[in-house]
């Protein structure tokens, strides 16, 4: 019998446990990460505000070099030298500022209530430890219990993520498993301590599309079962459309748009988001010609002045070249870092001469406010 099912609806997230309504599970404010490079300072993440509610699935979408993966690493304080998380950055998770925690305390959070699923299953696993012992290790780090108990729990986790012959598989090494199986093991490790938030950084990018479907279905079922929140980091607009309820779009180190998933796909506000959507070839509609975004993403050591997208933007005018737009409120929970939004908003009420009234004083200074509350 053909085992088909409907793709989960984007609104279908499990009933959140615990957290009081309104208080986000994760709240990032003015996150800045810099890297000292031979070409100068790269401002890889430059004033990111982002929130995830308990049980919610949120997308963080952008192309290579936009800073989305560095954002994920910074949340867990995994940014390595020469990277540096700037003072003033805040990452609040379950009421605690992770950036202010002692090393010991952050280790207690990582892999416990807050887990990360990496992109590359081949390198994220330890090649000289059996997969079973890697899962057991995480369990023993965070939960007190005997070695045998942890081992039993590990086998149970392997079974949960759909690995056949879990008992025997627990004794295999990473190289003995296929890419899809390795990704399942990583999911088992991430979920072993029943995290409240999973950050999934391109969790299926290295996998074939049929395996990707299988893995995402698994993750989806487990999320519903355990009621955890997921921050899905990806370049794939299809995955975002299918799996998330809210989306942040990132470009050149900044959030450029924030919206409900349906609203974003119905009418993207930022010209970059519009450009991305028009550039993707689609199965469901034949396009004569793709609308390519001209030029390329500038290097993080040399973000353009003004709006960082202006050199590639078809709508750019003088103001875009000289003043960086803040993340402007576009109503209905939507925000976009584009002067056009302000224009639209004012067009409805009063027409002329608003220019400059609410513009930030200096373009590259601060977080531009407007973060998710």
């Amino acid at each position, binding site marked *: *019998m*053909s*085992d*088909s*099912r*409907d*793709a989960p*609806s*984007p609104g279908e997230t499990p009933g959140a446990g615990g957290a009081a309504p309104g208080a986000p599970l994760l709240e990032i404010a003015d996150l800045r990460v810099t890297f000292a490079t031979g070409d100068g300072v790269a401002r890889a993440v430059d004033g990111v505000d982002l929130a995830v509610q308990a049980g919610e699935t949120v997308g963080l979408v952008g*192309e*290579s070099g936009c800073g989305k993966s560095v954002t994920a690493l910074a949340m867990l304080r995994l940014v390595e030298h020469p990277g540096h998380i700037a003072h003033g950055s805040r990452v609040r998770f379950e009421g605690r500022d992770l950036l202010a925690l002692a090393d010991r305390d952050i280790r207690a959070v990582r892999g416990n209530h807050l887990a990360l699923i990496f992109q590359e299953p081949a390198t994220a696993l330890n090649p000289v430890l059996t997969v079973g012992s890697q899962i057991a290790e995480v369990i023993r780090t965070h939960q007190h219990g005997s070695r045998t108990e942890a081992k039993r729990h590990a086998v149970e986790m392997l079974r949960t993520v759909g690995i056949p012959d879990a008992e025997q598989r627990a004794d295999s090494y990473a190289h003995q498993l*296929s890419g*899809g*199986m390795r990704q399942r093991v990583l999911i088992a490790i991430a979920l072993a301590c029943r995290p409240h938030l999973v950050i999934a950084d391109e969790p299926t990018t290295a996998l*074939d*599309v*049929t*395996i*990707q*479907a*299988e893995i995402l*279905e698994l993750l989806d079922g487990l999320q519903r079962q355990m009621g955890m929140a997921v921050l899905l980091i990806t*370049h*794939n*607009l*299809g*995955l*975002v*459309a*299918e*799996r998330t309820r809210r989306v942040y779009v990132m470009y050149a180190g900044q959030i450029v748009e924030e919206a409900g*998933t*349906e609203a974003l*796909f119905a009418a993207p506000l930022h010209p970059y988001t519009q*450009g*991305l*959507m028009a*550039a*993707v*070839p*689609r*199965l*469901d509609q*034949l*396009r004569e*010609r*793709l*609308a*390519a*975004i*001209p030029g*390329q*993403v500038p290097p993080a050591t040399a973000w353009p002045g003004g709006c960082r997208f202006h050199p590639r933007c078809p709508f750019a005018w003088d103001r875009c070249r000289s003043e960086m737009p803040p993340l402007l409120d576009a109503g209905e929970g939507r925000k976009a870092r584009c002067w056009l939004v302000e224009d639209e908003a004012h067009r409805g009420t009063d027409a002329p001469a608003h220019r400059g009234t609410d513009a930030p004083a200096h373009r590259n200074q601060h977080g531009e406010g407007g973060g998710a509350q």
Partner: protein
Amino acid sequence: MTTPVLGCPGAPVRPLLAVDALTVHFHRRTGLLGSHREVVQAVSGVSLAIGHKETLGLVGESGCGKTTLARAVLRLVEKVSGSVRFDGQDLHSLAPGELRRMRRRLQIVFQDPHASLNPRMTIGAAIREGLTIHKLAEGAAADRRVRELLEEVGLSANAADGYPHEFSGGQRQRAGIARALAVEPELVVCDEPVSALDVSVQAQVLNLLMDLQARRGLSYLFISHDLAVVRHVAPRVAVMYLGRVVEEGPAEELYARPRHPYTQALLSAVPVPDPLTKRPRIVLRGDPPSPVNPPSGCPFHPRCQHPAKDEACRTVRPELEERAPGLRTACHKG
């Protein structure tokens, strides 16, 4: 140009490229100290045809044999059996000198332009190399030709003096395309040409490839794992699984009404960038079997979820048969 041949409507009458029952194997050493030798059956009895100015899309997942097929088409790897005819001549039986002359007419664009661009050679020198080898231009004429080619692919003429690492991925891919075009080929094999690129740049390169085809009358064998990309560029598509073509035909029919259960699963697995689209999804269980030891009968039978799957699927190899105008499917039940 697309009237029936060999009982296969939709395929070109006098194809530029005709691959017939091509089989390619690899020998691989495994085990401790390579003590064990095994045969990878990468391509098994594949037949394909590409007409003049036509694009054939070839889709499949990792390990399905699509890249090996591409290499065998260019005779970069040797066949076990079958033939590859280009403009009527069997490439696999040409003498080295003849093959070299023939290679001018077939070029390849790789996923990673690093594979075709020497890191120690300027972009201009890399493009010029083909002109020299095939004695197409020299001296100032060659310089002029290099500049024209760079401009044709959307790079500035002074890119000729740069080295590959000085360019972005998209620019390098443009240079790789210019290098392939320098020798005026008729067929270009594009092996995952945009897979390493971000979507905004991917669209630029896809548009370029389509413009070049229109302008120069090129034929493409366009290989990709991305079904949406292939849909965009190819009016005719072949789907490979475990070394075999399991379905082939007009893209419109194949994408709208796939008959093979693998094509159905593959298409249903692609996430569509529209949150309001709800499609039934066929989730396959398990990994594809190894091409070292492919299953008997239909190569897809262990993962197939067709309700009528039976003994024949496990024992008898299905041949490609026409199921709809131009659409050929290798399935006992499809």
